[in-house]
Every structure is written in structure tokens, then in C-alpha cells.
């Protein structure tokens, strides 16, 4: 056998490669290039994830005492961003100097976004709350609001979830499920929904008429009302217990989706283990604003009530007073410094910032940081609490 060699190839070709390339370039027309937003992939990316959307309140419905739904419609010809049932949008508010953001689940259907260019948010009055009460007291028809693109992962994923979702909703935690029920009825999601909706009394039930109407026309959606403090024909009494879930869950695999107040999560923590479900079949909506870190066993002792936070943004520093009971994000917002945030639950990373000095407390269960972020001093201010004077570098909103 001959020894392999490159004898048959011509090295002189190399000398021509440069001139050939040059000739090819010069023979090409210098056409203007397409604009970035004209490429199909970029077009869809921009449509689904606009930086912000300006919308107007076009309808307000009182769902119960202290609970209202707001229809938010696009104000320009650009279609409102489509979403998956279960996602939320972030509302930007300014209350005096206080700049804040809050996530709200979309309670309307994806179809309504597609056809009517609108989302519906449902807001419940919270004792001592700020944003929700502000919205309820101030938004009227015509109010303009700046919101984010839809975000969040509390969505039905056909490749991951079981065919049937057992939805465990508490109080205003019903909103993402209303969207999901509608999406199933519209044929936009291919799943079955067995919704167990827990409320204290029948006066607290939201969307009952809408849900009953969906069940009427779509046999993939079923709703059971569960009242802890009241009676109603056809409704269950008590809490969303393991026993109740077993009673209504289908044979075989099912996914449990949970959205409700903290008390309900705490109760379910005692109930879900009794069902022996695999982790993949249990999905929680975000927990929202973290309160009372001091109550945790691993919270350090002797922390001052008030500390100083030096906030650095693009090289400029501002020092503010902060309550150690407030998250760092809240303190920054209270000082009127615009700061990026979305989920406010520690998981999306949107608020990510660099702690350059001082100590903070981060509750373990909401620490959603990336591994390498730990090593390089990055934290999520939405669920971090200052323990001493600190310096933090935030990125512009």
C-alpha cells in the first residue's frame, strides 16, 4: 500500500484563495441589509418578549368584595404579547416617590390576547398591602399602565406534565387556573383540569359563574368548590386535604398545580407527602414577596433594626436607610431608585445584583441563584435581607 500523502492536491491553489475571495466580495452588490426586526426569528422574539407594553384599562369588574378584575388593552397597533396560561405580567407603579413593580397572574385566556389584544388581571385587597390597594383605589377606565411581557413557568407543559392537572387553588390563587380552564376550553391547551378551589366562605369565591360555564361546555374541565367556613350545595367542606385530592384525582398519573396563600402552602406541605407523588408531578406557583425573615430558625441574632445600603448603579453611589425586615429590593424601591424586578420570589434572576460589601440573609427555600453566582457575590435582592451596612451594585432598570 502507498503511503498516504497529499500529492494530488495543488498548493498553488492557496495563493489564489485570497484574490478569489476578494473578487467574490467585490462582485457582490452592496445592498442595504435587512433590519434586525425584519428577520422572522427576531420578529417572533420581539412579539413574544417586548421590553415593555403600554396598556389601558378598558373594563373593570367587581368579582367579590375587595376583588376586581381589570381588562388591559394594547394602546398601539402592535399586538399584545401572547402568553401561556399560568403566566404573569409585571405591573409598574409609582406611589409618591416609591417606585415599585408587582407580578400578577393573567386571569384571561390566551385566545383573548390573540383576538382582542387584552389581558385581564384580578387584584385582591390585602390588609396593610400597598400595590394592590393602590390599584384598587386608583385605577379607573382609561388609566394607562406600563407592564412587562408575560413571564413565568407555572404553565402546562405537555412533555413534562401528566395529562390531567389537579389544580389546588386558594382564594385569589384561582387566577392562573381560570386562564388554564379557558385555554383548555378554547382548544389551546390539550389537558384535563380537575380544579379544587378552596375558599373560606361562598362570598370569597371568585369566577364561579365563569368556571361553571366552562364546565358546562367543556368536559375536560371540572371544578369542585371547597369551603372551610361555609356551606354550599354540591361543595365540599373543609380544606384541600390529601383525602380530598385522592377522591377527585384520576386513576394513574396526575400533576398537581398549586397556587394560593401561604397558609395553604403550609397546610399542603403536610398533605402532599401522603399522596406519594413524584416531585415532577408537583408544581408550585411562585411564593411572592418574602416576609418576616426573623421568624426563621437560621436567621442570625442581634441584627440592628436599621442599616445603611449604598446602592451603586453605573458608577454612581447613593446611600439609603433600610429596615432589616424589608428585602433589599423593597428598600431600594422605597428610596425611589428604579430597580429591575419581575417575579419578586427569588427565582427569575431579573433583580440580580452584586453585593460588594456587608452581610445579607437569604432564606434557603427561595434562593434561586445560579451556582457560580454564589462564588462571585451575586444575590437576588428581592429575597435578600441586609444584616449590616452593605454596598450593592444594581443594574439599571
Amino acid at each position: 500500500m502507498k503511503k498516504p500523502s497529499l500529492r494530488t492536491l495543488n498548493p498553488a491553489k492557496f495563493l489564489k484563495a485570497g484574490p478569489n475571495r476578494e473578487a467574490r466580495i467585490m462582485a457582490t452588490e452592496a445592498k442595504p441589509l435587512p433590519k434586525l426586526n425584519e428577520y422572522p426569528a427576531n420578529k417572533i422574539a420581539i412579539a413574544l418578549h417586548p421590553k415593555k407594553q403600554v396598556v389601558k384599562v378598558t373594563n373593570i369588574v367587581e368579582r367579590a368584595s375587595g376583588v376586581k378584575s381589570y381588562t388591559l388593552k394594547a394602546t398601539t397597533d402592535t399586538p399584545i404579547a401572547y402568553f401561556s396560561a399560568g403566566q404573569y405580567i409585571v405591573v409598574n407603579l409609582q406611589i409618591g416617590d416609591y417606585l415599585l413593580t408587582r407580578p400578577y397572574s393573567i386571569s384571561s385566556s390566551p385566545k383573548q390576547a390573540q383576538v382582542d389584544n387584552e389581558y385581564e388581571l384580578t387584584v385582591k385587597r390585602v390588609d396593610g398591602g400597598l400595590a394592590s390597594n393602590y390599584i384598587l383605589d386608583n385605577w379607573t377606565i382609561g388609566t394607562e399602565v406600563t407592564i412587562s411581557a408575560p413571564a413565568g413557568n407555572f404553565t402546562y407543559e405537555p412533555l413534562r406534565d401528566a395529562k390531567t392537572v389537579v389544580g389546588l387553588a386558594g382564594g385569589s390563587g384561582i387566577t392562573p387556573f381560570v386562564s388554564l380552564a379557558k385555554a383548555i376550553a378554547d382548544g389551546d391547551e390539550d389537558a384535563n383540569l380537575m380544579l379544587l378551589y378552596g375558599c373560606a366562605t361562598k362570598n370569597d369565591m371568585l369566577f364561579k359563574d365563569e368556571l361553571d360555564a366552562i364546565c358546562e361546555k367543556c368536559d375536560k374541565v371540572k371544578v369542585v368548590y371547597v369551603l372551610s367556613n361555609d356551606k354550599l350545595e354540591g361543595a365540599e367542606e373543609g380544606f384541600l386535604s390529601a383525602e380530598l385530592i385522592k377522591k377527585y384525582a384520576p386513576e394513574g398519573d396526575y400533576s398537581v398545580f398549586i397556587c394560593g396563600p401561604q397558609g395553604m402552602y403550609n397546610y399542603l406541605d403536610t398533605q402532599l407527602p401522603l399522596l406519594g407523588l413524584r416531585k415532577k408531578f408537583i408544581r408550585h406557583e411562585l411564593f411572592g414577596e418574602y416576609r418576616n425573615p426573623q421568624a426563621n430558625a437560621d436567621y442570625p441574632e442581634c441584627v440592628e433594626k436599621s442599616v445603611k445600603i449604598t446602592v451603586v448603579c453605573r458608577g454612581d453611589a447613593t446611600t439609603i436607610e433600610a429596615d432589616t425586615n424589608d428585602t433589599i429590593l423593597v428598600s431600594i424601591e422605597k428610596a425611589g431608585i428604579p430597580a429591575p424586578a419581575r417575579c419578586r420570589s427569588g427565582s427569575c434572576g431579573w433583580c440580580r445584583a452584586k453585593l460588594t460589601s456587608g452581610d445579607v440573609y437569604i432564606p434557603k427555600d427561595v434562593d434561586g441563584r445560579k451556582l457560580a453566582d454564589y462564588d462571585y457575590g451575586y444575590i437576588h435582592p428581592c429575597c435578600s435581607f441586609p444584616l449590616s451596612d452593605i454596598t450593592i451594585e444594581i443594574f439599571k432598570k
Partner: protein
Amino acid sequence: MRTQFDVIVVGAGNGGLAAAATTARAGLSTLLLEKHNVPGGSASTFRRGRFEFEPSLHELCSVGTKENPQKIYNIFKELGCEIDWRYEYNTFRAICDGEDGYDVKLRAGFDNFCDDMEKAVPGSRESVKAFFDLVKKNDEALAYVYEKKGNPNPLVMLFKHADFLKSASHSTEEVEIALGMPEKARNIMNTYWGYLGVPTDDLNAMHYLSMVGSYVDDGAAMPYKRSHELSLALEKSITDAGGEVWYNAQVSKFLYKEDGSCCGVQLQDGTELYAKEIISNIIPNNVYGMSDPKFVPEKELKLANARTLGMTFVTIYVGLDCSKEELGIEDYTIFKMPFPNPREQFNRREEGTYYVFNCLNEVIPDASPKGTCMLFFTVPLMPGDLPENLTQYNYKKWKNELAEVYIKDCEKSMGFDIMSHIEEISVATPVSFARYLGTPNGEVYGYQNENWDSVINRSQAQFTDFTVPHLHYCGGHSVMGDGFSSAYITGHDTGIRVVNSIKGGK
């Protein structure tokens, strides 16, 4: 807020990070601008539940080890970065369907690789060995070209480096055929083409050789905490040296002086920033779109028109609620191909199931919690491949259906039970890359490295292709083509060039 710097770098991708670290550490006041809120561009991570996924890195080439450091190892070291490198010493397993199909696994190390290839294709050893011998010859020639700053003496090249000239001006397959490599061995050898995005009949042999050579010689490296570790290490290198990194800082305009030289950038919020030298880690096409047309040289526009946008992907990230052992996974990288020939794989990509399968736990066992594992599917696509009727409304459905096809194919051809174990899943497409990287049509690989525009041709023309004074380019779209290592190297090189021009007037 400071608005005047020695150097502004636009884009904190791998190229931009390396460039900014190089200039900052040389004592130049450096500002790195990034539109996203994390560094890295492609080199990042994202979390879902208890998993943290690596979005892009399969394997990093040209790293080497502490004992035998290669280019990338040295760059990180020089920039003061401590990286916890992990290694993979198999190159790949390749499974090809069909009558002339095969299922082979090749270990790293030139001798191992030749042995394994000989086993798969008896009689191939000599040609495979000869192919790898070219790697060394190429290195010598390249060192000479580099020494001569891209202008070597043609006679020296012809007499001393003829084999280099041949492989530098012919396609990978032309070289392999000349060496008498059997067809099946060629197909197996060319499995990696997807990493460069150009089928091997139009992919420069020198370019392909240097990549394959590096994987076979040193194995592949990966950082323990995924790409985010690399990006943060470089970010720290910049800020430790006094440089600034601004996130959520999208550049919307490049600023020029009347004489046509670049002097700064404008951010989306209107802030104007100025520097002596501007380094763009973003693709020239986008820079032109952000420049007054009168400052875009006609030849650059011609070049952009003559080029094809590089490859992009559909990627599927899966977190499973069982260990890789339970599934029987024993390989880090498996290439799955419906046809043996790269050109056919490329041309028929829409009908077939060509993909790369990775299981990170194979290299980093604790990359995910005990009793779980992570899979990563990569399907190469060209930027124009999106279905015509794709809209924001049917997008999610489309990507889920696509993901299902590939996962099911993997179940069938490799026998892993994946579907019933999916605890987390995320599917990225060119739309996702368009969103996060901001590249035209979501391209990831810059411009196609077709042979007329090969790395070697690009590097010869690097000082004549781009002529705007004080504006420099680095990253996957530049001289060396795509890939982490290319981006780091061009970033580092560009940084050095800028340092020299500011400090020494060179």
C-alpha cells in the same frame, strides 16, 4: 457617571469578556456594555426547578491541563481567572441509521482514536494517522504565518509548508480523499462538522483539523459550574482591574466622527459614551444597522452581503428524575445521524433526525442533584429554516412538537426511557437565540465558514476587511469562526491589538 473611556467593548459574550479583561488588565480604562443582565451571551446558564442547565457548551477545545496547558488555559490564567476544569476523554459515540449505518465510540488520544477507527473501519489507520500528522504541520506553518503578521513569504510557504497550503486551501473531504481515507472512515471522522456548521465538503481542512486535532489530542474541557463560571471569572478579572461592566445597557447606535472614525456609542436610553477605541463583540451586520449608512464602508457591506449567516439551533434541555445509571447512559456525547454523509445530513436536515445528545452528569456527576440527571439535545438548523407560517401564536406548539420528535427518536435509537422521567424541560429555538443574543435570525455561529470565506482566508484579510478607524471586531462572527475557544482567542487578540495601538501607537 463617567462617559469617556479608553476602550468601550460592546457585548459581554465570550469575545467581549476576553477583550475587556485584556484591555482593563493592561491599565486602560475599560467599559463593557451588555444588553442582558448576565454576562456570557451564549455562555450562561438558566435554572428550572432543581436543575441548572448549560445552554450552549458541549465541549471546549484547546484548553489542555495544568501540566500541558493549551491556548485557552493560558488565556484564562493570564487574565487571572481560576477555573475548575473538568475533562472528557472520549471524543464521541456516533450512531448512524440505515443499511450502511454504524454505532462507534472513539476515545481521545491520537493512538486510541486511530485504534478505534481501525476497529470500525479496517484498513483506515494509515490515512487517519496521516490526517492527524497534518495537525502538527499546520501548527508549525501557522506559527510562521503569525510571526509574519499574516504576510508570509510565499516561497517559504511553498517549500517548507506545502502540506499546510494544501490543507488550507482544500476542503476537509478533498484532503481526506487525497490521503486515501475510506468513505466510512471519512464519514465518522467528519462527525464533528455540526460544531462548525459547514458540511465537510465545503469546510476548510485546516480549520476542521485544528478543531478535531484539539479534541483528540487534549480531550474536551468543561467548567464545573457550567459556562456561567467562565463568564463570571472573566467579569471579575475586568472589575478587579478597575474596568466597569454595565448590564441592561443596550447599545442602539455607533457614533462616528466626520472623518469616518468610530468614537463612541449611544445606549437605548440616550446616554452617549465615548472612547479612543471601540471593540464590537456583536456581529458587523448589527453594527451597520446601528450606524449612519454614510459611515459604513461599501466594501464591508458587500462582504456582509456575500456571506451567509451562520448556523443556529433548536436545543432541548431536559432534567430527569432518575440517574443516568438507571437509564443506562454511558456516553457524554452521542451524535445521532439519519445518513452517514455530512452533506446529506445538512441538505436533508429538515426531514431527518440529526442531533447531538449530551449528558453532563457523565463528566460532572453532581451537575444535578443525586438521583437526577440532565440531558441536552442540539439540533442544527440554518437561520432560514423556521416554518413560514410560524407566529407568536403557534410558536410554543411547534417547538414542543419538534422536541417530542427528537426525544422519541432518542428513546428508540438509544433505548433510554426519557419521556416518563421528565421533571423539567425547556426548548430553545432560533427565536430564543434571537431574543437573548440579538443576532440576525438567531444565528449563533456568526457567518458560515464556507471554504471561500474560511478561517485562513479571513485571517489573511483581517486588516483589509474592516477598515473603520478605531472600530474592532471579536467573537464567533470574526476571524476564527464560531466556538467558545475562537471567541476567547479573538477577544484576547483584539484586546492586545487595542492595547498596543493606544499605548504604543502600533
